[in-house]
């Protein structure tokens, strides 16, 4: 392998990692704070992409406005889902909530298929240049995704240090003790849903000028988001970020050598990691129902 090819594969992995980081961060936030395994998380990513398409391509609004619209729409939808589904199933336990999100995700996925068919939505590239550095090609749109992911992570880092952010962390650490300290868990939960879903909306919005939107894009990325969360550790934002880039890079290199067996390589590495570190790289083990 030449150095040029090595660097190209590395860059490809970082680009893929940026997409995974955006989707997985919302997923791990909800899993960590609410202890809800949100199977519909990928659908918020898909809806975010289509919302961006609708605002930017159909209505002709500037791309930045479309990103904000996707963020707001997914945050609102997250709140709606919390109050209409999560809140009522949460009291019955982990599996009830998980199944409810499976149902919600399936309904949203099928509704999207009925509404949009299997059409592909393309948003014009914001920056449409492929840069070449030492023979390594860098798609400027993907660089923007990478930059966007880092900015979003930075904002999230700041947010988690605000009063509500600290309350979210407290709930993630120990819900009962947090409540005894006077934290309003109900408020923390719906804010978490809003932020977690908004992150996916932003992910969809950032990605859609680079990767075309389709109604199955949420399903496709969801498995990767789970892997990232497993590797990074439940509820750990830093872990999700680190794991996203690791998974992206491993996937990129594995494809070069074993092509479609690349997922097998990833699963094998995840299995080994989980065996030695059940809590992933930086988190704690997944919540086990009943314990």
């Amino acid at each position, binding site marked *: 392998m030449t150095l040029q090819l090595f660097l190209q594969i590395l860059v490809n992995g970082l*680009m893929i990692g940026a997409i995974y980081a955006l989707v997985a961060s919302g997923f791990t936030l909800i899993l960590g704070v609410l202890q809800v395994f949100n199977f519909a998380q990928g659908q918020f990513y898909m809806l975010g992409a289509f919302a961006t398409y609708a605002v930017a391509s159909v209505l002709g609004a500037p791309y930045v406005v479309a990103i904000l619209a996707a963020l707001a729409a997914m945050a609102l939808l997250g709140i709606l889902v919390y*109050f209409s589904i999560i*809140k009522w199933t949460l009291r019955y336990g982990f599996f009830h909530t998980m199944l409810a999100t499976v149902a919600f995700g399936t309904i949203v996925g099928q509704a999207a298929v*009925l509404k949009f068919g299997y059409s592909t939505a393309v948003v014009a590239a914001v920056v449409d240049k*492929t840069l070449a550095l030492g023979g390594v090609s860098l798609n400027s749109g993907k660089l923007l995704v990478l930059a966007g992911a880092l900015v979003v992570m930075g904002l999230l880092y700041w947010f988690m240090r605000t009063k509500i952010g600290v309350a979210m962390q407290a709930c993630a650490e120990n819900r009962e003790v947090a409540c005894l300290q006077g934290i309003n868990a109900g408020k923390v939960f719906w804010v978490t849903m809003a932020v977690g879903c908004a992150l996916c909306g932003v992910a969809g919005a950032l990605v859609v000028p680079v990767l*075309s939107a389709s109604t199955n*894009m949420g399903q496709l990325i969801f498995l990767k988001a789970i892997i990232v969360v497993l590797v990074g550790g439940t509820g750990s934002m830093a872990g999700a970020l680190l794991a996203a880039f690791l998974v992206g890079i491993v996937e990129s290199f594995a494809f070069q050598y074993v*092509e479609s067996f690349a997922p097998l390589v990833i699963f094998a590495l995840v299995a080994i990691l989980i065996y030695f570190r059940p809590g992933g790289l930086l988190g704690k083990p997944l919540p086990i129902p009943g314990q």
Partner: protein
Amino acid sequence: MRLGKRRLGTLVLGVLFLALIAGLVACGGEKSTESTTGTTQSSGGAGATGTSAAGGSGSADEPVLRVGALLSLDSIQGVEMKKWLQLFAKLYNDAGGWKIGETTYRVEPMFYDVGMWDATKSRSAVEKAVLQDKVKYLVCNWGDIPAETLSVTEPNKVLWLGLDFVDDSVKPTLNYAVRAQGLFFAQGLFYYICQDYIKQGAKSVLVVCPDTQQGHVGAQLVGATATTAGMQVLDPIFFSADTADFSPIATKIASQKPDAVFFSYVAGASLINAIGALKDTGWKGFILPGELDGETLNNLVAKVGKEYVEGMETGSYDPRPVEKDPQTLNYIDAYQQQYGDWHSEGCFWIGPWFIFEDAINATQSTDVDTLVAYLTSSKKGVRTLTGYSQLFARPDLQNYKTVDSAPGHYIGVVRDGKFEYLETIACKDQYLSSIKVYGLKDVYQKYWDEYGYPEFPDQPARLDFSDL
């Protein structure tokens, strides 16, 4: 009972949410189809997996012709095939029914969701159709496992007119199966394009496919066709079906430096993203997307620019810019009136319906054995939405009945970002080029010596028997 303010608010939110979902579903649903589930005289109603829908009014004692279809309703092809079958049934029913012999039937399509290549779902769907709903004809399929289906249809003497990517349905031991849509005799498309690309200087080709059964079959067939046409075939690249970012794939393609890249069974967003990633690597060469509809081409041009795809040849299943046949034009109009928009994804795969319709009209019978006898000694092409389709024997499998189809295909070229129709691939070319690609000339020659050369529809063709 009194509700607190909070609970009332939540209830309102819940209702609003459900209304939103219902609204979304209603917006996307078919516009004017009437469900007639389980109101027919012939057998019990459809249950959990089987649903029927056909236009027109019908009474409970009216003769009904139930036509089953095993479709994956998670796929665009399955959804589109369902829409076409509903439309065909509606057209018959609105015209007073389908007159077969002395009886006029109301047509009732029955749909069974089979998931995506899920053996368990396939099995339960076909059992429901055949054993519970007593469907006698299974016409058109997508996403099922034909081997599972045939293990139920054969002993129950149910006519299966379907699609099969492997040769499970064309074995000589089968009596009621006709592969009315297959790709065995469909090498004409790639053969034509390979010839055209070789003329333009292409020497090597790399086939890129999803890691699915279809993908592997496609890679094998496309590779064999390219080799026969005179191209050097590099090791194919298979990618996971859940690939979102195609950069690693594009990097690998570019590192092998092929003159041409053939994307087999890569469509929609995947195709656009794959070609976009390929452009990012700086690779330039000939591209062959297996299939390209107008919407995908528009999106592709928006993504990579028209210069990058200029001169790209491709198969197409869109009959609109091509067909002049009045009946086909009527179908296109009816589809657009019924559904408002246009999708080409089902046009090719709905072919078995026309072969079924031709058999019924020619025999004026609904008897399965009569229909099978007609189909398995077929001597002519049948017009479908994408040109002629014709049934042929498979002497290479010792099956001398006409049970396998050479389907119609269009070929076009991208000029200035638009699809420009080049030609229709003749049934004769599909048939002959496939025999040539598989190296089966001797086997077929023996068959022709005994049974005579097949007759083909009157279409311009590039190949002749002397080319083999």
